[in-house]
Each structure stands twice: as structure tokens, then as C-alpha cells.
């Protein structure tokens, strides 16, 4: 019996992961009421937990959940005088024999994604709303992930939903002319969610933010198959995720060249490369595809020494044109140093330092230190490592820099 119960609980959990976003999206589409949609989705899963152990897991869990949630919404709106108009819409679906069966209701998640990531909402609200309504994380889970008080996170979600209603943010996929700009906003939200999870694991593994970001990116790729950038982002995430376990060892940052490549996840790398190839076939380059291509160069090099640095330097050049930023320029300098020799790279780093746009960013002196060390300019390297150490924001990075500093040979008398 326990085995049966565990199987049913696992089925409900799987349905929650797979169906939550679509369920909420459909209910918002039908009622226009975000809170009602979330509540009824929640109730549908509670009903599943109560009845599936007895009646068995339905053949189509998603359709069962949608029907149940829709009934709950109808019940609620019937009790609520102001719900009359929304109720009429729902009732048509309930009674009309010609209405499409729930299996054929179009996937509303794309409308939900674009609405959650609307530029008229604050960026942190877009992130929270996406995690709550699409990924189904609880407010408490989102608050924990972003080191915020639960009450603050709850208020952020309430305000965002209120603004959607009061400011008239439409529940729709933007028209073609607005799509590139709006899609970039969606991808930025997903990438931030991934990076939050990548930098520091604050949730338990089951609900890891990196996994949520990858799941949402997969959904986006399925819903927008003609757009190459979502696939570029998915590939980038998969290739980073493949190396995650080797990024730190005993709380010390491990740089790429010293990571244990045999511990990288070969299946994720293969999938990342395949997804990227599919995106590149569209011949519409974008910043995420280029970053994924750089990650693929690293991930597919059998050893650090065989890294294709000229290719990486060229890709950073492309990225600097598509999405110019001083951080991209710094990364390009490293690639140029590895491809064309340390002096060429150092010259670029010194140019960046002189421009002053990266002042206070620890990776600027850390990169200089590394190049100076490779060039054998020990005294200058030591000064740069100390400067980086004072600026580094995390403990693993400080430990890494301290270890590198300690490794430097004593300077000549």
C-alpha cells in the first residue's frame, strides 16, 4: 500500500511541475482573475492528492486538473456577485457540447510568460511573478531563494498583480513588431533566475532555481519554435549546468582550466550543443546564442590546453558588437591573451582599466593578476591579486585568490 501511495504522490508532484503553469495560464485566460486562477489551481492539486490514491491516477492528469480547477472557478464565481460576467464566459465552456475538450484548449502559457515579464512591471516583480504563476513556487520558496522576508515577497506579488489589473497590462503575446524587444525581457528574467540558482544554491535540490529556469526555457522553446534566442538561452543554461558540480571544491572557486572535466555532465553538454546547433541553423545570431557557442567551445574541449581560443576570441568580438558591455570586453581580453599572447590581452585589460567603467569590479584586477602571473611579472601580479582580494564579493572567490597569491614565487631580491 505504501508503494501505491508513494507512486500516487510522485504522480501528483510530477503533475504539479508539468501542469501548474498551464493550469494557471488557462484559468487566467478564462476568468481574467489572477488570484482566483492560483487559488483554483491549488485546490485542484489538493483534490488530486485526496482522490487519486483512491480512484487512481487519471489517464490525462492535466485534463483532469483543468476540469477540476474550472469547476472550482465556476463555483466561486457563482457565489460572487461581481463574478457574473466571468461566469458567463466559463459557463459557455461548461455547457456547450461544441466547446473544445480540455485537451485542445490552446496553451496559454505563452501569454502568461509575456505578461509576467512585461516591461511596465519592476524587474524583481517580473522574476517573482514568473516563479509564482508559471513555475508554481510558493511565496515562501521565492522569498527564501532571494533572501527576502516572506511578507515583502508577498507584497511584491500583490502589487504586481494589482498593477496588471489596474494599469490594463494585456494578457497576450505581443505582436510581431514588438516581439524581439519583449522576448529579450522574458529571456533576461529566465537568465536571472538561472544565475541566482547557479551562484548559490539556496533551495533544496528538488526545486532548484537552475532547474526551474531550464524547465521554463524548454517550455518557451516549445511555444516559440521559430525564435532562435530562447534555444540559445536554453543551450547556454544546459552547458553551464553541466559544469556546476566542478565549479567549487571544498568552498574554493575552481577556475575552468583546473576543473575536473571527467566530472562534467556529458549528457547535458550533448543536449546543449544539439539545442545550440538547432538555433544556429536559423542564421539569426543573438547574444544568447553567441554566449552558448562560447560555453560550447569550453565544454567540448577534452582538456584545457586544447581549448579553441582563437574561436572564443572571435565569438567575444561578435558578442561585443551584439551586446556591448565592459564585462564582455574583459572576457574578450582574456580570450585574446590566450589566442594571441599575453601582451595583446594585457593591453586590452589596461585599456579597460583606463576607461574606468569597471572600477570596483573584482574580476578586473583578478584578470590582470592572472595575466601578469602567466607573463612572469610576479610583483605586479601580487599587487593585482591583493587588489582583487579586497573587492571579491564571495568567500569561495576570496579563498581562490588567496591561494593563487600564496602560490606566487618569492620575488627576486
Amino acid at each position, binding site marked *: 500500500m505504501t508503494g501505491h501511495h508513494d507512486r500516487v504522490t510522485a504522480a501528483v508532484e510530477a503533475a504539479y511541475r508539468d501542469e501548474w503553469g498551464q493550469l494557471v495560464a488557462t484559468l487566467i485566460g478564462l476568468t481574467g482573475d489572477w488570484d482566483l486562477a492560483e487559488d483554483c489551481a491549488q485546490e485542484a492539486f489538493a483534490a488530486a492528492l485526496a482522490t487519486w490514491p483512491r480512484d487512481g491516477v487519471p489517464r490525462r492528469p492535466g485534463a483532469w486538473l483543468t476540469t477540476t480547477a474550472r469547476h472550482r472557478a465556476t463555483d466561486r464565481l457563482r457565489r460572487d456577485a461581481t463574478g457574473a460576467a466571468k461566469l458567463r464566459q466559463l459557463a459557455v465552456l461548461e455547457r456547450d457540447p461544441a466547446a473544445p475538450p480540455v485537451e485542445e484548449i490552446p496553451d496559454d502559457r505563452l501569454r502568461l510568460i509575456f505578461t509576467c515579464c512585461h516591461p511596465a512591471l519592476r524587474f524583481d516583480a517580473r522574476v517573482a511573478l514568473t516563479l509564482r504563476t508559471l513555475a508554481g513556487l510558493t511565496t515562501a520558496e521565492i522569498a527564501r531563494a532571494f533572501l527576502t522576508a516572506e511578507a515583502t515577497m508577498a507584497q511584491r506579488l500583490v502589487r504586481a498583480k494589482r498593477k496588471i489589473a489596474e*494599469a*490594463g497590462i*494585456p494578457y497576450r503575446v505581443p505582436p510581431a513588431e514588438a516581439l524581439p524587444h519583449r522576448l529579450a525581457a522574458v529571456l533576461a528574467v529566465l537568465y536571472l533566475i538561472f544565475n541566482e540558482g547557479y551562484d548559490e544554491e539556496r533551495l533544496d535540490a528538488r526545486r532548484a532555481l537552475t532547474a526551474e529556469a531550464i524547465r521554463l526555457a524548454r517550455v518557451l522553446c516549445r511555444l516559440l519554435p521559430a525564435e532562435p534566442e530562447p534555444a540559445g538561452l536554453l543551450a547556454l543554461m544546459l552547458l553551464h549546468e553541466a559544469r556546476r558540480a566542478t565549479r567549487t571544491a571544498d568552498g574554493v572557486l575552481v577556475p575552468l582550466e583546473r576543473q575536473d572535466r571527467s566530472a562534467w555532465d556529458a549528457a547535458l553538454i550533448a543536449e546543449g550543443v544539439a539545442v545550440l546547433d538547432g538555433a544556429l541553423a536559423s542564421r539569426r545570431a543573438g547574444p544568447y546564442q553567441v554566449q552558448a557557442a562560447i560555453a560550447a567551445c569550453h565544454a567540448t574541449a577534452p582538456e584545457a590546453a586544447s581549448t579553441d581560443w582563437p574561436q572564443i576570441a572571435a565569438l567575444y568580438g561578435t558578442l561585443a558588437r551584439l551586446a556591448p558591455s565592459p564585462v564582455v570586453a574583459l572576457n574578450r581580453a582574456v580570450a585574446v591573451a590566450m589566442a594571441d599572447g599575453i601582451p595583446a590581452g594585457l593591453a586590452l585589460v589596461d585599456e579597460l582599466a583606463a576607461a574606468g567603467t569597471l572600477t570596483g569590479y573584482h574580476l578586473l584586477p583578478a584578470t590582470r593578476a592572472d595575466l601578469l602571473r602567466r607573463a612572469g611579472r610576479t610583483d605586479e601580479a601580487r599587487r593585482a591579486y591583493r587588489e582583487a582580494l579586497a573587492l571579491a564579493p564571495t568567500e569561495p572567490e576570496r579563498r581562490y585568490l588567496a591561494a593563487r597569491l600564496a602560490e606566487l614565487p618569492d620575488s627576486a631580491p
Partner: protein
Amino acid sequence: MKYVLLICDDETASPSNEQLAADPVHQAWLADLERRGARIVGARLRPVVDATTVRVRDGETLVSDGPFAETKDFVGGFVIVDCASLDEAIEIAAGHPYARWGSIEIRPVWE
């Protein structure tokens, strides 16, 4: 949905009404509003040097010269539109000539 578009800039560029009327961008914006049938009412405002601010404190009416707040940008005009959604209001706002050097604040009407 009804929105008020507050048309703001720092008053550095201050075209006359005639210049504005002759500006092809402004003409295109008006034509766009006409086509959408969205415009309810609108007005251009005289510069802030001609503004007067009134406050009543403890029963006393305080009148002062100038705008209500010292900011870089001032409201130079407004238009009330009735359109489908915030996205349409954004499209309308983006077409206004002042959007290119000033900014347009979109405020839903509280009804």
C-alpha cells in the same frame, strides 16, 4: 481603458505651437490618434515660468510661483485617451514627438 498621457520634458527645446503643428512627427502622431479613435481630450501647457501653485495649510491659502516640485522634467501637456490596453497606450505614447527627447508618463484614470 482610459489613460492620461503626461507629456514631459525639461523645456530646453520649446517649439512654438506653429512649429509643433508643422512637425511631421507630430502630424503623424495626431493622424494615428485619429485613426485609433482614442483621443478624448488634450492640451498643451504653457511653460512652468507661467505656473502658479496653490496650497491650503491650516486654513490659509498659500500661493507660490512655479511648479509644485523642483524636478528636471515638467509636464508640458496632456492627452486623455481611451484605448484597449496599456500596450496600446504605450504605442500611442511612443509616437509623440516629445518621447524622443523628453518622456511620456502613462497614468490609468482612476474610475
